[in-house]
């Protein structure tokens, strides 16, 4: 069992990892064919994974309904929403599988009148939360926090048209903050993160980091 659950995945990770690293340096057609095959595998696996996700979702909510967990009523909506979407998706304006995607079907109506506004509503909540978080936590407690606060106010005003009306130098100062100090800090973080990412990749390729296979070591 340990051989199947540990050794084989580690060997696969090592072989694929090393192969894909070298693939980057080999422009030959054979290397490109390999890349093409591997990416197709990846796409296929990702496609199948959707079924696993759907199974997990339905299994969880079915159990919630069955065992009458608190809030089980919401789980009914999962089945209701998914069911209606699947039915109209398959119905495809009466064409079923005979033809490809039809236009102006009930599925499209649900997409534009349910999913689109619901998604946009969720995103818009961000504006409210941002305002409340800024009010509660943005304090000039220390000198560094004060600098941060002043920079934030300049950028917030300088990035919208009203900034130039308040003071004409606000947009250029905001641009300078974004493209000089902000960029310097971001690059430093990016370099650190990238080195960390390379080191983590190496640890996975060489089987040093195996926590992702389950268990602690």
């Amino acid at each position, binding site marked *: 069992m340990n051989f199947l659950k540990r050794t084989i995945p580690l060997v696969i990770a090592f072989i694929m990892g090393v192969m894909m690293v070298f693939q980057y340096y*080999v422009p*030959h057609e054979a290397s490109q064919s390999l890349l093409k095959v591997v990416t197709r595998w990846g796409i296929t696996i990702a496609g199948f994974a959707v079924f696993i996700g759907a199974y*997990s979702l339905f299994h969880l909510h079915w159990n919630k309904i069955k065992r009458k967990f608190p809030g089980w009523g919401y789980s009914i909506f999962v089945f209701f929403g998914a069911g209606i979407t699947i039915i109209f998706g398959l119905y495809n304006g009466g064409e079923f599988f005979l033809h490809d995607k039809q236009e102006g079907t009930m599925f499209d109506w649900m997409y534009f009148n349910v999913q689109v506004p619901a*998604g946009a509503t969720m995103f818009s*909540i*961000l504006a409210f939360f941002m305002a409340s978080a800024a009010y509660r936590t943005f304090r000039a407690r220390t000198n560094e926090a004060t600098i941060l606060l002043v920079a934030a106010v300049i950028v917030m005003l300088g990035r919208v048209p009203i900034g130039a009306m308040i003071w004409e130098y606000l947009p250029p100062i905001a641009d300078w903050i974004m493209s000089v100090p902000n960029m310097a800090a971001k690059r430093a973080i990016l370099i650190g*993160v990238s080195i960390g990412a390379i080191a983590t990749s190496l640890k996975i390729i060489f089987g040093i980091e195996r926590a992702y296979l389950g268990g602690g070591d």
Partner: protein
Amino acid sequence: MHKLFSTIILTILILLYTSVIFAVERKTLIPPSDFQAFDTPNDNGKSISLRWPVSPSESADIEYVVYASRYKSVPFDTEVLRISSTTMYEENSDSNFHYAEINLEKFFGEKDIDKEKNKNYFFKLVLMSGKNTVVAETIASASPKGNWFNWLKLNNFIIMILFCGLVLYLIEHAKKNPNLYLRKISGLDAIEEALGRATEMGKPALFVHGLNGMGSISTIAAVNILGRIAKRVAEYDTELKVANIDPIVLLVSQEVVKESYLEAGRPDAYVEDNIFLAASEQFPYVAAVSGIMMRERPAANFYMGYFYAESLILAETGANTGAIQIAATDSYTQLPFFITTCDYTLMGEELYAASAYLSREPLLLGSLRAQDVGKGILIAALVIGTILTTFGIGFISYIFMAG
């Protein structure tokens, strides 16, 4: 008389002027003296490079057209390039040569090229000005060949090998000297405290994955932390809920948590439904996770991985429920949101270091040291490079040039 004389003079001048213009327009086009075709270096064997010296007749309205054929004898009827004669100069040639790469696949079809490997392709260069054309004397030919190494990436390859060597050496070194110093990461120390609080309150701990899939290093790092948290949770006999957005991450998380429970000797406490797919898209995911927070009021929330705009909504909702919140992300635009709403935040590389920090395994600690050394080398290169470039010595930039 005077009038007649001026008219004659004017007529002569006009005739002279128009004849000059006429001569210029009719100026014979001079083809380039040479025309070469050769296999494009560092490629997959599907392109041919063409090179020819500039012609004295070049101007913006004169074009170069290249025709190709698979046989020297048949008409050249496939146009593979048409450019203004004052463009596409070869790099570092001071505009003395033109250079173009022809992707044969585009003109002769992928299957035909694959079928006839090492086949010669013939090229004819034509200089064109309206209907006036002139053909270069040489018919160039070359056969495309695939290369087994991209020499333009040699610097990158050497740096990669050196860094790999450094990581492996320092890991070996760490095996011999396991007591490496690690600075304190309060966020990771607080995990114990958060789980302890959840146990005391008898409420679950919620682990929220970021939005990226298993291909992202941040997700792998998050899964590593999840393994450690799950083990501790199993020991404390607390409930752990893990929200996922990606089905593959879900599978891995289930396996990791199951293994951790097994290791802690509590396989019976593992509930598969506690590691679930909340939704497969960003904002439905936010709605689902926020709903869980509001209804089940977990005592501890862990946000680990790569987050986007949803970070603030999640963390603000969590803060509102009074949970201890620990975030770890390398998504630096979301850091301000986590810092303002969470009790502890692990920034950038701290997320990757978490696994080593929590396990204190020498092998993992060694790689942390390698990251530090690698960073030191880069900082030195940046500083030295800046100084040298200031004095006009730019060789260091070639070392790091992208191929």
